């Protein structure tokens, strides 16, 4: 029998190669246009411990032993980009007559093997575990010294705000005090009865008894 529809295989996550370009960008689309590449195996991490703004030490490469601040995280590949570290030169805007501008581009580093958190008490590398404080707050604790390494404020930063309290409310945003106000008053009324009451509709007639057969 002739198949009139072309065979369309669903795109699975293995068919995508995640890169430093975010999945909604044109560069990502270009990178994933052709035939699917071989699958990249990543170590599943149970408790992700490195966040944006953390001070980390680089363990491999040219910048081995140096400390840097994490600027970007790619959880799909277990990557971290440390600001100003592990870079390489590349040209952008190159054309036939223009040689292009040389810039420095940071390469991602693996969270598991190539980077390690730094204990603020002695500025040395440490492994980190998640523990609960007496207040019930989940915190990172250095397994060597026991010092709490707080999650940096930059980790809670978004496109909309740096700190939640500093968010500027727009025209279409309901103000926070309006949202937090509790205005619900429970009454012994059905939804229809409540609507009638709010609209001021009064009904004296009583409906006749109806039967189902």
């Amino acid at each position, binding site marked *: 029998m002739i198949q009139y529809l072309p065979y369309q295989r669903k795109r699975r996550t293995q068919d995508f190669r995640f890169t430093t370009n975010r999945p909604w960008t044109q560069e990502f689309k270009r990178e994933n246009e052709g035939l699917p590449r071989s699958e990249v195996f990543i170590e599943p991490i149970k408790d992700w411990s490195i966040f944006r703004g953390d001070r980390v030490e680089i363990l491999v490469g040219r910048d081995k032993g140096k400390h840097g601040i994490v600027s970007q995280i790619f959880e799909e590949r277990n990557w971290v980009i440390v600001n100003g570290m592990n870079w390489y030169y590349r040209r952008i805007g190159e054309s036939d007559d223009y040689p292009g501008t040389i810039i420095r581009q940071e390469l991602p580093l693996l969270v598991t093997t190539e980077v390690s958190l730094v204990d603020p008490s002695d500025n040395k590398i440490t492994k980190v575990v998640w523990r609960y404080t007496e207040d019930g707050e989940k915190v990172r604790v250095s397994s060597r010294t026991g010092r709490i390494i707080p999650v940096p404020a930059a980790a809670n930063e978004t496109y909309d705000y740096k700190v*939640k309290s500093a968010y500027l409310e727009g025209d279409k*945003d*309901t*103000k926070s005090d309006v*949202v937090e106000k509790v205005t619900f008053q*429970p*009454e012994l009324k059905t939804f229809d009865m409540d609507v009638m009451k709010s609209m001021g509709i009064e*009904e004296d007639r009583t*409906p006749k008894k109806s039967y189902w057969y």
Partner: protein
Amino acid sequence: MSLQRMMCVFSSRTSNLLLTTVPFRTIATTSTRMGKKNFRSIFIGNKRGSRIYKETRIKDPDYISDIPVYTDVKPIGYRYGKEYRVIPEMIPDIIVPDLTDCPLKPYVSYRANVAVQEEFTAKTLFSFVYEEKIKKDFANQKLDASSLPLEPSDAESLSSETAYLEARKTGSDIFSERIPRHWECLELKSDK
């Protein structure tokens, strides 16, 4: 049957594997065209498409009126045999309140501390309406032997029959008779 058509059939039997569609013409023996139109030249839309797309299609000069463009598929009546009977109550009456100076907006500010409230059940409603009075009556010994109040409030003196009638007074049509299906409406026209 025309000769061309016969030839097409013969060719299709011999060359089954190729399955080429050979166009042919026929002579219609009835006076009407029997709905034959060259649909290849006409773009027939379906129910899909956004409202804007459908509205522009209606305004299109090539729009064919016998292929309607539906923007709202909810019924406003029922089919009785061949005719369609419109029920005015089924026509949706959208009541939008006046939203000027309304403090509620489509989005919620990030600054708001959204607390998780407990589930509002029948039990919570009961406790909200009756709890205080019951506690006060118990403290002042205003409850009789079977724990019923001696001085019932309005809510406590409400019986189930009265509550049922009060709820039906709204005129909500969810308790009304159901709309008859078309096969229930068709009368048998045996000897007429």
